[in-house]
């Protein structure tokens, strides 16, 4: 497995009227060729900022990459000139946004918007680009692509528009596709269609996907690996099975316990108490400690490092320290851990 994208010790701050907001506080992860990495977290956890940073789409006026590097095929994107970055965007790395209702230019035909990156990056003629655009429209499942090509975004439904946005993103066969909550603004039935389409296209085009979402249910469906973000940091990362069935971080426990499943019996659905940390004044210790019922004194003093669970599974919680007491995870998690053992033994 080759690494296509590596994010190392990324720190990003925003300058606001009230002061410096440390939105990203040391994020590390990598993306392998052809895999789908899901980044999960609640709003404000820094997942969208991370994705925008990779594309260098953060507003230059008030955001600042304090530290770290983003290596794409070995070159550091944070150090690229604007001109060279433009050559990466849309060609090597492209992006799908949350709200298809607002992410298309209302005064430009859909066709023109798809052609734009093709002409720009692949230097095709207008006619060839049009042919290619119609192919892609067909690929993303839009009927009558030739007819649709000439239409304006407002003539498309929400789901159709998201297909168009996907078509634009895939127009130049990017190596990395960043999908920033691509289904959040859509109806549940349409969500499933779009997810299906993305999985399908990934197989056809062989692109790596970073899938950003707050919806754990979606993650299980599409991802190979999952990174859980909290308070501007990754708190747990592992394969889907590891994170879903053998979670280690109390925050992940909270997330999983708060997810209704068919075998949730009479017990109440869990809700994580409290609110996310204020990143204007980030806490000294573990950002999750104030909401953590398993918190220890050290959690308030020092940030936990990443503890290794398996070769692919890491979590940042002091509970994994050899000196830490053994604690009982919530019942929903215990049940999953039992299932995880079954799966392992069953193999």
């Amino acid at each position, binding site marked *: 497995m080759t690494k296509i994208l590596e994010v190392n010790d990324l720190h990003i701050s925003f300058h606001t009227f009230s002061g410096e907001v440390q939105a990203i506080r040391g994020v590390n992860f990598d993306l392998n060729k052809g895999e789908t990495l899901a980044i999960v977290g609640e709003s404000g956890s820094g997942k969208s900022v991370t994705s925008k940073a990779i*594309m260098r*789409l953060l507003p230059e*006026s008030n955001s600042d990459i304090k530290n770290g590097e983003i290596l794409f095929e070995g070159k550091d994107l944070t150090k690229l000139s*604007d*001109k060279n970055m*433009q*050559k*990466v*965007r*849309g*060609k090597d790395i*492209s*992006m799908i*946004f949350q*709200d298809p209702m*607002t*992410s*298309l*230019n*209302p*005064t*430009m035909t859909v066709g023109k918007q798809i052609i*734009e*990156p093709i002409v*720009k*990056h692949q230097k095709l003629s207008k006619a060839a680009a049009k042919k290619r655009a119609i192919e892609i429209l067909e690929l993303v499942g839009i009927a009558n692509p030739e007819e649709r090509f000439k239409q*304006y975004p*407002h*003539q498309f439904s929400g789901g159709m528009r998201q297909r168009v*946005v996907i078509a*634009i*993103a895939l127009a130049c066969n990017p190596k990395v596709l960043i999908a920033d909550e691509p289904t959040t603004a859509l109806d549940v039935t349409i969500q499933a269609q779009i997810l299906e389409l993305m999985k399908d296209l990934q197989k056809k085009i062989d692109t790596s996907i970073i899938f950003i979402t707050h919806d754990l249910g979606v993650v299980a469906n599409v991802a190979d690996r999952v990174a859980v973000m909290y308070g501007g940091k990754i708190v747990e990362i592992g394969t889907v099975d590891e994170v879903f069935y053998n979670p280690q971080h109390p925050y992940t426990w909270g997330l999983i316990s708060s997810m209704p499943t068919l075998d949730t019996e009479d017990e109440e659905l869990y809700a994580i108490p409290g609110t996310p940390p204020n990143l204007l004044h980030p806490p000294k210790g573990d950002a999750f400690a104030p909401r953590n019922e398993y918190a220890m004194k050290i959690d308030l003093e020092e940030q936990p490092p990443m503890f290794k669970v398996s070769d692919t599974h890491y979590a940042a919680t002091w509970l994994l320290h050899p000196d830490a007491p053994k604690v009982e995870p919530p019942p929903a998690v215990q049940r999953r851990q039992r299932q995880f053992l079954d799966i392992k033994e069953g193999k």
Partner: protein
Amino acid sequence: MAKYLTQRFVYMVITLFLIASLTFFLMKIIPGTPFSNASKLSEAQLSIMIDKYGLDEPVPVQYANYLLNLLKGDLGVSFQFNNVGVTDIIVNSMGPSATLGALAILFGTFFGIILGVISALKQNTWVDYSSTFIAVLGKSIPSFVFAGLLQYYVGVKLGWFPVAFWRGPEYMVLPTIALAMFPLATASRFVRTEMIEVMESDYITLAKAKGASWFEIAFKHALRNALIPVVTVLGPLVVSLMTGSLVIEKIFGIPGIGEQFVKSITINDYPVIMGTTLLFAALFVVVILIVDLLYGVIDPRIRLAGGKK
């Protein structure tokens, strides 16, 4: 679309009818107009009035005649100027006014848009601050004050351009600048706000994510979307041009409708006052209609939604 058009047209006609009726009855009320004071008229003038409006008949008949004459484009007779038809007076003085108005709106909106785009793209820099300053001045300083000062300092003191009259291109410079200030200020403020909003929209982020260059983003994607709402300020701009033309033509001695109008006010030439009023009203109403239609042409969402708002 057709339904919307008809509806708009009906409103336009009602408005014009109301203004026309208002002017007629005002002529009957105000002492000293040809309609209210026939005894002051000479023999020849009286016969014109009887001939045209049936001044010896009851008021409703006069009113009907007045409206019929309006439909034919006849705005009455000015007795101060040797019984010349008001329509002729207006047609003869139309040229300079139209030229001046067109120049002012062209230059004003053109430079206003450029200024607005630049200050939006260079937000919170000295370029932005100075264009804001220009816009505040342009919006705030009354056109006649600005025109007077321009005439004195640039015309009299510096002597760069002719101080007054309308005899060639160089005579147009100062009045055009004076009249263009308001459109320039309005357009630049409006474009700046719209442009900033558009630049923050999702589709601009998407365009960036596609790898579009700064130039392509600003001019291919943002500008058109930012310009659509600018059409809505064209109405107020035309009004400002009318208002401005009255005083600026007076200041620079330009033989246009505005100067004619101000002159008529000072000598109580009511037929000319009323005629010009009607003309201005008609112009305004038509411009508003055109603006609304134009809006549909530029914005595909409205164009295809069949005129829905």
